[in-house]
């Protein structure tokens, strides 16, 4: 209990001393990256494949957001000392300001642009890989079925003998009459 109290107190003191705009947006990106795919997978109305696709896409979007926030923040913040030297303003203030500016720029422009450029190719690639895997699984299943059939039919007779039964003269005349009737009913004429 005491440890938790001290931990929370330390976090609060640090946030009170310096609260970066990045903390909240990173926390949101991380939890969105976990919660949105989870909710999508829990949806009982969509089929399994669609859910998987949507969940992966959502997870990927938040992963892009998380990385974009971190990278732009690092790039912008690294400029603070040189800008402070040039302008003579407080480095801490410039770093604070750049931090919020980088968050705004990332949320409004960089994330949607990166998503537009990367999501489609990545999702196409994932779909391709998944289709290939499915095809392979399908072939394996088909082979399995054929194996079962081949093993289950054990006969010494030849293929022609099996599929060309010997018919009695009565049976042949009956088959002919049935065939004729069928063709007449369908309105087709053989050789006509």
């Amino acid at each position, binding site marked *: 209990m005491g440890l938790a109290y001290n931990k929370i107190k330390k976090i609060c003191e640090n*946030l009170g001393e310096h609260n970066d705009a990045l903390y909240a947006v990173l926390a949101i990106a991380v939890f969105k990256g976990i919660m949105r795919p989870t909710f999508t997978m829990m949806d009982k109305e969509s089929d399994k494949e669609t859910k998987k696709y949507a969940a992966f896409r959502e997870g990927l979007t938040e992963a892009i957001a998380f990385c974009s926030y971190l990278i732009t923040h690092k790039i912008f913040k690294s400029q603070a000392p040189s800008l402070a030297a040039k302008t003579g303003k407080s480095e801490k203030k410039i770093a604070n300001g750049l931090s919020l500016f980088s968050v705004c720029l990332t949320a409004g422009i960089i994330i949607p642009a990166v998503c537009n450029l990367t999501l*489609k190719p990545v999702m196409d690639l994932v779909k391709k890989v998944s289709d290939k895997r499915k095809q392979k699984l399908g072939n394996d299943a088909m082979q399995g079925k054929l194996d079962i059939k081949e093993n289950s039919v054990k006969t010494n007779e030849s293929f022609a003998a099996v599929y060309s039964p010997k018919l009695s003269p009565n049976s042949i005349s009956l088959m002919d009459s049935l065939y004729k009737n069928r063709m007449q009913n369908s309105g087709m004429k053989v050789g006509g």
Partner: protein
Amino acid sequence: MGWFINAITSNRFQTIAQNTDTCVKIETGLKAVGRPSFTLIDKHTDKETRKYSATKEFLYQLLCFGIYVAVIPPIFKNGGFKLFQKVFTKENLPNFRNAKEMLAYYHLAHLDKEERMLEQNKKYWNAISDDVIDKTIRTKTGKFKDGIPVKKYLQTWSKDKITDKGKMFKLAKGSIELSSIVGSVIGLTILAPELSHLILHPIMKAIGMEKGHKKPAEESTEKNKLDKQV
């Protein structure tokens, strides 16, 4: 470049940068504009799908913004602040009534002594009650034997003195920020997706966006049905 540095180092910008609540509002607002715009210019998909996605994204971000404004300040910011005041009773924090009072003090404390007295900052002075007392400093006898009103610090001390004496009340400020971060996460990752399920489709139908357009999920389900029938 000079105007940019002046803008980002201004007191207003610095206060916003230190405030989770405002930062998340700005971020959500920018997402509501940026994401639909980029969806509309995406050439990978057809025009109808782009229009549908952009409208849906815009409405979703608008919903997030609404949830944020309605839920975070009253419930998480103030609720969290009061909860933390109880948790940190041992720390002898001043008796700020709510987060707004504390943030007004924090804003004024970060200004130069002369700047605090300007007309534009009057609303911050009005937000702080006269009976918010710091009991960690008191005179043995006389006027402040029960503790000093925090307004006294703002009237007489410079920004540096307030910082040096530890009267920025970092713990109180940090507790507001922590509860705002927790509130933002809950609001935007749990409440918003759930509410969007209930609200977005009726709105999209009402504005005629769901008539001609089938979602990918619907298309896929229909295709599956047809495949099964075949």
